[in-house]
């Protein structure tokens, strides 16, 4: 009985994003799997992001308004435009259900990744830079 229930859940999960006739026909998603146009809810701003805004001398999230928590291979991930690739969230990170809260975490993760001395572009710059 329990086994049957498990199968039901997994098949439901597999089909959850495929909705339109066209998607059903081709068996895959069309477009983004999250709302790329979702505007940030500033009441959910984290202390880390407040400090970042203050450091940069801006009035709001600025470029981070376009950052959302998305997916890569069904894993939560955030897109880094500097490396033109997805950065997957750490396995032990517990993500909230609300998309607005998830987006705030995605923004924090992306700043930490981009500003890290271990960012891939830092290594590439060491190897290829032509002038200071």
């Amino acid at each position: 009985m329990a086994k049957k229930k498990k199968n039901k859940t997994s098949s439901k999960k597999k089909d959850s994003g495929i909705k339109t006739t066209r998607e059903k026909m081709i068996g895959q998603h069309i477009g983004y799997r999250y709302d790329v146009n979702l505007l940030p809810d500033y009441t959910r701003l984290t202390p880390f992001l407040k400090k970042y805004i203050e450091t940069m001398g801006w009035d709001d999230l600025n470029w981070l308004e376009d950052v959302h928590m998305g997916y890569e291979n069904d894993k939560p991930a955030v897109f880094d435009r500097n490396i033109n690739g997805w950065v997957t969230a750490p396995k032990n990170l517990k993500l909230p259900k609300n998309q607005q809260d998830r987006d705030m975490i995605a923004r924090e993760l992306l700043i930490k990744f981009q500003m890290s001395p271990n960012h891939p572009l830092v290594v590439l710059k060491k190897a290829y830079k032509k002038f200071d």
Partner: protein
Amino acid sequence: MASVKEHKSHDMGLHQEVLTGRTQQVFFNPEESENFLYNDAYDVDFNKRTSIDVEKLNCIEVNSKIKDLMKQGYGTIVLKNPGAKHSLGVGILNKLNLIIEGSLGYFGVGSIDGPVVRISGRVGWSCAENMMAGKVVIEKNAGSCFGAAIRGGDLICKGSVGARSGIDMKGGTIMIGGNAGAFTGFMMQRGRIVILGDVGPNLGDSLYDGTIFVGGKIESLGADAVEAEMTDLDVDWLKRKLKVAEIDKKINFSKMTKIVSGKKLWNYDNLEPTERKGAI
């Protein structure tokens, strides 16, 4: 002549590493200490102010001088007598207050990532082209291709702008206090455009994604641009963003028109070539 294999990137192992399956955990620890600046950014102080007289300098000299001043820790730089010279203030990848007393020519403040720029005059074609982050405020009018291909940040023109504003934009916000020309938001892929005045023909033509808000009249919509319903989140965001844009106008936000992509031109599934073959 040195061979390609003698390049130091080979010594660093960049050509042997396996890239597939790599995740961010390889590169950084999310728990590491707070750092809000890029690895090679200059630590500048907004209270440390200086100015450059641009009159007898060319754009390369001005841009190098800005960089040198940032190296010295200057966080507020004033450009005097810019004389509508082209490509001033480009490629600033740092936090900075840049004040331009006058007008800029073509491609002003392009490819910037972080600074807050205030321009008291007008700007020519492609102002803030490819902007990544920061804020640019223009007090008067702007030429065509305003904010072409911007990816992030706030680009504000308090006056009117020419044609093709926000062409190919991939993020960020463009705010226009006056009117906008034809093909505004042409091939826009993401981000937001706010026009408080009227807008010319073919608004949002071939719009892939993103949102356009218009306060005045729309001459005509482009292919695949459709009207959508304003939400409470839209109105709240617009109210707040107008304050950020420093535009002092009374607007009835709920009466603004919201334009989005109809998504009829979306066409990017893998099976399409096979299907086309079948149809032929």
